[in-house]
């Protein structure tokens, strides 16, 4: 709709301050009614008629919860199962009817049966996957006796419809969220400022990072046959960055808006791309959804307190449902199952990896090991994103195949050669640096030998500067990094070959990225957009790191000048570098 109140629209930028201002001006007893009205207006700004579906779910679950709480024994269980099925049937009807119908048609066709299911081609009600899961969670908690059924219809409706979170979560838990709607909210300047800052970060991630990247990803993924494996890999990694910043940006705006209004929503992301394993990744990515699956599907199935085979099945079921939750397409199923395979494979190979690290005296706690774990996890996650983004399974496998086999395009090969030009002198410099005693006048090294080494170093620098100008940058960067790391003893105790392997990985990764960015992009504007996004991504992750380690840079304790400089820089970056052609949030389609 033209006047939809999607977060990154001018309509929302007008709507929200008005709502927040009136909210605090109204007498407290009208707060929940006012918020409910605002949430209603917010929801009907998308597809108005679907508010009826929302009201149906709210009403059904409100009465069902009260009835479940009142009943005992078989009746209680029957009511519970009926309510679950009723909720699931609604989401099934809107989300999966056409998917199942089209697959049945394909199956019928393949066995020569003249059978067809008409497709409904319904537009998915906004937020249905999120609010139905939130509602299901409430029903389950009431059934388990962990939470009392909410008696106030209006408050319950607000719990489901609360506008900051209805569209794309985070999925709330009744114990954490429902009681908040019963309390009066008073204006708290600090909370409002923090909430506004969180919203700003959300906008930064969405319009400065995610939307800068989307054009290139769309370009490549719309015609994957036109691109080499290295370009497809690059686009996939960019998509991983895009979806993370798009979704976490949305979450930040939602949480910030809620905080301005005096509410606290659950955190949904904790620097997931710095996870050291896939299991850890799923504790940091879309936390509200995965904790929902853990508490309401995985643990009831037995969790990990079962045999290995049964545990593997449990994991596969959870990720199969997770894949389907994201979309009615086999690509999402493959994506989910791929993650299940990663987790199962990780458990199977754990004894082997433990033996390897033990025999090679490799510590699992040193920084280099962590870097390798993070890099491996990042690559595995991005390989899975291929299927998340691809339009079909065939296309997904085509892209995967291209990445693994068609890396030697002119761009990729040139990148590899450039990397070798860097690696050789880099290794030489590393060797020279490690022989630093030879430069000391106190060492017994002959002057002639010192002289030869120094001349070689200077010749290499000359060659690098005038022959391979751009690659001197890599040389300087990584030699500098090696110097710093060596001096800080970060890799102390790590076997030398592991250190060099670590430098190799870092050099390779960045050389590939810098070469890919400099080659084969459609036009300079796209390249600039991507570089802005990558720079913004580094800034955003640095901010997340500082938020998780508040003593490192406690912004709230800094002077007004420093704080204002940060805020003004953030606002300016959003306005100057943001993309404002209205780009949909990715997770809204789920």
């Amino acid at each position, binding site marked *: 709709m033209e006047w939809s109140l999607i977060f990154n629209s001018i309509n929302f930028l007008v709507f929200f301050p008005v709502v927040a201002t009136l909210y605090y001006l109204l007498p*407290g007893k009208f707060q929940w009614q006012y918020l409910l009205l605002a949430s209603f207006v917010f929801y009907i700004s998308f597809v108005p008629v679907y508010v009826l579906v929302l009201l149906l779910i709210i009403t059904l679950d409100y009465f069902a919860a009260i009835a479940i709480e009142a009943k005992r024994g078989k009746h209680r269980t029957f009511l519970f199962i009926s309510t679950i099925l009723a909720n699931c049937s609604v989401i099934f009807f809107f989300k999966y009817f056409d998917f199942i119908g089209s697959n049945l048609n394909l199956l019928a066709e393949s066995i020569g049966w003249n059978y067809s299911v008409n497709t409904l081609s319904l537009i998915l009600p906004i937020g249905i996957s999120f609010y139905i899961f939130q509602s299901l969670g409430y029903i389950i908690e009431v059934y388990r006796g962990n939470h009392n059924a909410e008696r106030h219809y209006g408050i319950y409706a607000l719990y489901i419809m609360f506008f900051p979170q209805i569209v794309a979560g985070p999925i709330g838990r009744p114990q954490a969220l429902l009681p908040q709607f019963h309390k009066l909210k008073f204006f708290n*300047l600090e909370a409002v400022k923090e909430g506004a800052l969180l919203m700003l970060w959300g906008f930064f991630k969405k319009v400065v990072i995610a939307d800068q990247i989307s054009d290139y990803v769309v370009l490549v993924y719309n015609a994957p046959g036109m691109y080499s494996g290295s370009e497809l890999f690059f686009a996939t990694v960019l998509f991983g960055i895009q979806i993370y910043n798009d979704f976490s940006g949305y979450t930040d705006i939602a949480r910030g808006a809620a905080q301005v209004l005096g509410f606290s929503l659950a955190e949904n992301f904790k620097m997931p791309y710095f996870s050291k394993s896939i299991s850890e990744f799923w504790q940091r990515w879309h936390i509200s959804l995965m904790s929902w699956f853990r508490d309401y599907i995985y643990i009831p199935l037995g969790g990990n307190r079962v045999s290995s085979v049964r545990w593997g099945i449990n994991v596969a079921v959870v990720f199969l449902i997770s894949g389907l939750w994201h979309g009615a397409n086999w690509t999402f199923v493959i994506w989910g199952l791929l993650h299940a395979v990663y987790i199962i494979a990780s458990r199977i190979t754990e004894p082997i990896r433990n033996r390897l690290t033990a025999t090679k005296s490799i510590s699992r706690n040193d920084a280099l090991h962590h870097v390798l774990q993070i890099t491996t996890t990042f690559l595995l996650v991005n390989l899975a994103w291929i299927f998340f983004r691809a339009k079909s399974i065939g296309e997904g496998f085509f892209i995967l195949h291209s990445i693994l086999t068609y890396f030697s395009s002119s761009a990729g090969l040139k990148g590899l050669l450039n990397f070798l030009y860097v690696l050789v002198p880099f290794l030489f410099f590393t060797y020279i640096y490690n022989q630093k005693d030879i430069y000391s006048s106190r060492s017994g090294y002959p002057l002639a030998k010192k002289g030869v080494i120094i001349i070689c170093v200077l010749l290499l620098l000359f060659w690098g500067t005038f022959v391979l100008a751009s690659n001197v940058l890599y040389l300087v960067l990584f030699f500098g990094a090696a110097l710093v790391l060596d001096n800080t003893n970060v890799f102390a105790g790590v076997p030398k070959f592991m250190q060099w392997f670590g430098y190799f990985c870092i050099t390779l990764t960045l050389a590939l990225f810098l070469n890919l960015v400099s080659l084969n992009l459609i036009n*300079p*504007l796209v390249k600039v957009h991507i570089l802005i996004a990558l720079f913004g991504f580094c800034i955003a992750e640095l901010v997340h790191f500082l938020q998780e380690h508040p003593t490192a840079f406690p912004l709230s304790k800094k002077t007004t000048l420093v704080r*204002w400089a940060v805020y*003004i820089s953030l606002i300016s970056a959003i306005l*100057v570098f943001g993309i404002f052609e209205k780009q949909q949030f990715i997770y809204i389609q789920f």
Partner: protein
Amino acid sequence: MIPTKNSANLTMSQSIFGNTYLKAVLFISLVIIVLITINSIYKNAVLVAPQQTNWSTLFGARELDVAFFGSSHTETDINPAYIPNSYNFGSSGLNYKNVFYRLSLLKENGLKMHTVVFEISMPIFTSALSDDIKPLDVNLIEALNKNNTELNNFTSARKACFSANESPTEKIARCMPVVGHGANFFLANQSRSMQQGELGWVNLTGDFSRYSEKERMDMARNLRFFRERSSKQFYDTTPRNSSWHFFLKSMELAKDESRIVLIIYPVSKEFEMDLRQLNISKKKYYEYILRQTRASGVDYVLLDYYELFFDSPEYFDNPSHLNIDGSTIFSKRLENDLEKHFIIP
């Protein structure tokens, strides 16, 4: 009154809020100042300076054999390198108000143009395009400190910021062109290739033929010009908007010193098919345009390339703009035709 946590501390709260309001006002003022500063740097470094460099070499110093004016179709389809002593003044999203504006500027500065080529492709007369002056031209006029009566009849930059007929986004685009375009800072040195290119040409590198037929039809249907497709006003056979009015004025301005050529650029077959689905006849449309043009009494030569590349989607970047290959072939063809009409030697 905003309820505070503890009403007994009302006085303290009042002073806190008093101080807070002051701080808020100061903060917002600082944000605005910073944005205005960045915007000002952007206008000079990215919008005006490259244009000035480009155009100042033309003002009063050269004569052009052929000058091309129009919208993005002109900008992308004509490569002046193939047409001796020519320049491409086309620009994306331009309507004829802007064309008249540019033409006036150039003549004002003494540039002699032996032949002026005006685009009369359908989109340039659509009301879907902004009917006001592009921020670029407004800024250029200010930078050149022009004080010409005719030009001052156009909305000045300051007035444009408060124009009642604009949507908020259009106002922002006019008054604060830096918003959403910060990437252009890094391309300021390349802004010629982005905005004007060598001799004004901007090249597109896409390949329309790589899409399936269905996808090509969808693209034709989804052209942004078509957002008003529900009303026939867009491709009405009687364009009534100010773009048409300024087209006639541009002809009038050019006729005394220049030969006039009217050009219809090539479009894809899918573009034409979509028009047919809207029951729009290209023939009737241009019959009207040319009838009105003849009625104005201005002599012109018509070059119609509408169907030239109907069977060559590989020459297009999108349904109605040529890519590098298409532009090269088209420009060479145009050069031949201009020679045949004795427009160029």
